[in-house]
């Protein structure tokens, strides 16, 4: 027993020395000597010589001049990789994808072929009828309670807006407390569904959304107001519009454009996705540089095709493009976007 204990301690010491000191040290020396770029994190520098990130880690891009990476659950935080963990049966996944699709989807055929659906979504929303019944926003909150509550919690301003609303409507709040005796002091999120119901009746064809206004001090500030168009309407209500228009013939969007990767840091997009974004990127650069759009488009197309690679030369997968590399190349060629 004691002998076994002594040998166990000895074995542990030997193992720790070999596995935790000698082995990592050996690999560290090999890595730093033979592959210093990789061993230090594949760090890339920008046109001005400053470090801009890692070739292997996705970073966010919002400007139209840039290709955009796949959606990221941890918001491109490379110190906390995470996936969405949304099951395919979870409505939250469908909702997230539909919101991303709304502003970018185009018609495929018919008289409006090639035009975006977003204006039609707004026009349909303003008519305020879903499946033949009035009040879209009230129906939305009723069908998707968790989304309505998520809206309240998404931004402190949204919560404050509901709190202000609750003060003006004590009767509705009192009724809610009567229906839910377990929650005598409801928070803003608890009231989300009754709030949207009343809001929808009072503001048909409108949705509460952030609008930038000049405040009393002359600085721009965001306030919540009922709006009838804009990004929120196009994204949040695209899914309901789609259910009301199941036969509308729409262009398919590349799958990886709207699905989140496992790590949330996937540095690549498919070549198909890059080509889908090419029109937007090229048009924006052409405007910025005041150059012929066709020529710019050809140049940028060459950039993405040159960067594109495929696992095992395409034997086991399709071509993809490194977003940061391509955007760096754009900056090197055309300068930083304004």
């Amino acid at each position, binding site marked *: 027993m004691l002998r076994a204990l002594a040998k*166990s301690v000895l074995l542990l010491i030997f193992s720790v020395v070999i596995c935790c000191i000698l082995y990592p040290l050996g*690999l560290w020396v090999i890595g730093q000597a033979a592959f210093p770029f990789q061993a230090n994190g594949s760090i890339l520098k920008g046109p001005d010589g400053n470090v*801009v990130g890692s070739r292997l880690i996705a970073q966010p891009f919002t*400007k139209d001049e840039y290709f955009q990476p796949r959606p990221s659950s941890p918001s491109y935080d490379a110190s906390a990789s995470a996936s969405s963990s949304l099951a395919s049966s979870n409505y939250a996944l*469908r909702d997230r994808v539909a919101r991303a699709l709304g502003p970018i989807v185009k018609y495929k055929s018919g008289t409006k072929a090639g035009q975006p659906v977003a204006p039609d979504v707004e026009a349909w929303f303003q008519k305020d009828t879903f499946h033949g019944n009035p009040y879209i926003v009230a129906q939305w909150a009723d069908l998707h309670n968790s989304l309505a509550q998520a809206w309240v919690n998404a931004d402190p301003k949204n919560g404050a807006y509901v709190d202000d609303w609750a003060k003006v409507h004590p009767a509705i709040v009192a009724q809610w407390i009567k229906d839910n005796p377990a929650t005598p002091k409801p928070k803003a999120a608890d009231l989300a569904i009754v709030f949207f119901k009343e809001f929808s009746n009072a503001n048909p064809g409108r949705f509460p959304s952030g609008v930038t206004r000049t405040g009393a001090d002359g600085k721009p500030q965001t306030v919540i107001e009922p709006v009838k168009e804009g990004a929120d309407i196009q994204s949040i209500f695209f899914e309901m519009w789609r259910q009301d228009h199941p036969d509308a013939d729409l262009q398919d969007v590349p799958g990886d454009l709207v699905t989140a990767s496992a790590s949330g840091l996937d540095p690549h997009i498919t070549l198909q996705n890059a080509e889908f974004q090419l029109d937007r990127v090229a048009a924006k650069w052409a405007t910025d540089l005041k150059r012929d759009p066709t020529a710019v488009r050809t140049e940028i197309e060459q950039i993405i095709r040159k960067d594109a690679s495929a696992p095992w030369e395409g034997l086991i997968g399709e071509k993809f493009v490194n977003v940061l590399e391509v955007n760096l190349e754009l900056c090197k060629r055309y300068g930083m976007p304004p």
Partner: protein
Amino acid sequence: MFVQTWLLPAALLVTATIVAFPLSRYLAWIMNGKYRSLPVLGWFEKSLDSGPQDWKQYTGSLLIFNTVLFIFGYLVLALQPVMPLNPDGKGMLFPSTIFNSVISFMTNTNLQHYAGDVHLSNFSQIFFCIANMFISASVGFCALVAIIRAFRGDSSLGNYFVDMWRVLVYMFVPAALLFGFIFVWQGSPMTLKSSYQVTTLEPTAMGTTDKGEVKRQTIVVGPVAALESIKMLGTNGGGFFGMNSAHPFENPTGLSNFFNTLAMMVFPFALVFMYGRMLGRMRHSYVIFAVMLTLMAGTVIWSVCYDTLRPNPGLTAHPVARTYIIPNAKAPGGKQAVRLPAVAGLPLDQHLGNLEGKELRFGTSAGATFDALTTDVTCGAVNAEEDSLNPLAALSPMTGMWLNCIFGGKGVGMINMLLYVIIGIFIAGQMVGRTPEYLGRKIGAREVKLAVIALLVHPLLILMPTGLFSATSWGLKAVSNPGAHGFSQMLYQFSSASANNGSAFDGLGVTFGFVNNPNPSPTAIPWDIATGLVMLFSRYLPIIAPIAMAAFLGAKKASPAGLGTLRDDTATFGFLVLGTILIVGALLFLPVAVLGPIAEHLGPIPFGG
């Protein structure tokens, strides 16, 4: 498209099989002690040798060493705040999380109720994770070798400490260096730095802080390659980063993914042949290998068919309206009809299959393939999010954990397979009315009892806690997805713990985080403790009972094979074992499979709102 889908899994299975032949020869040579070590290494080996051991001494040494390992691991994690290599000032994990993690790594499970990139310093990554990864993989390996020696009827089972030394020094360290080299070359960091702060190319896109300054991106690095190679080779599976082998630093390219996947397969494959070589019964091990390979190919084909070749059903059209009759005490007749309208599809090109939770650089079917293989060989690393697999595809990794003998982890999978072999022979013996024999020795009541105990520990430790947590708020508050998938999340967690696998449906709320975390998952503590205990029991009982069984069996007199002996090297025997595994597995786990993934597949999608 056909080639792009199937070449990778086929290449993996073929390569691992080819490598297994020479590797098994080497392993048998080492474990039989035929080598002549260098003088320096020989001195270490001699100083560890405590003499020949019988089965009680051998398992006793194994348990004592693991106790020492537990204390060491707990100290390293608990002392993280005061240890070196911690420039970011990572604090101490919550005690129940340390308890869980220490057991998890000691038992080769690597279920992680923390995220490496968020919660561990480089010191802990090296002295806790890497140390346990080498050591725990060797423990299972030694147990198998002891069983083989017992079956052979050797006078002693060898010496536990010498066996550990051999496995570590002559197998894992050289193999880890080789694969580590490949991973650094492909892009895994290998540095003692912990993180970079960078201003991204479009600085404002990261958002701004409360003070109006541009947020910078924090890129965590570290000795990733060193951890990565032993993580896969030792079928440990605990990632340096939260998202494991899906993280671009752990798995930078399509080629690194191939070697990542191959690394977890080579030792489990080779062990089957090593078993045959050490017993002098190669044909018998070919039969076992064929059974395992058949099951493995089945799980891979299943998950690729349902995940890579099908779109994500949450985003497609469901053109037929459906009505579900559900029980409702308040409704007339106790039943209520729920009508779900037809669903229009989203305009999405899903020809690459379900891309939610997949990385692009590995190849089309790489995620589905990896997810099936990682539970077959009880590795538990993932290169795609299992929670987001298509419902039926998730059945494949679960099956790997439930059967727990499709190659399995280091040694332990082969041991589980031997239990099925004993049970299969016993059943066959009952059918023809002869005393069952294995390796020429008669299987008695005591051996069968020990085999059944070892075999039943696993389902009991999955089904009982899953039932408990499904019935209480511990489980219901932890699940992050509605309906049947929520049940799958709990089921998966306990399956993973009991199979000593370590993969997870990541949405489950099991992370407490640092001891001073103001906002932990409310259910983290019961999950830490319950899965910790499950891992502990499901590791050591199925090692001790089979060693005892093998020792009793080996002590009996071997009789030459006669006309009536059930030969263990024929196709008939292969089908007997395959049938035993499938029937026993289905009897144990079909009910929960129906409640979880199958119900999710059949039920309304999308579900809830």
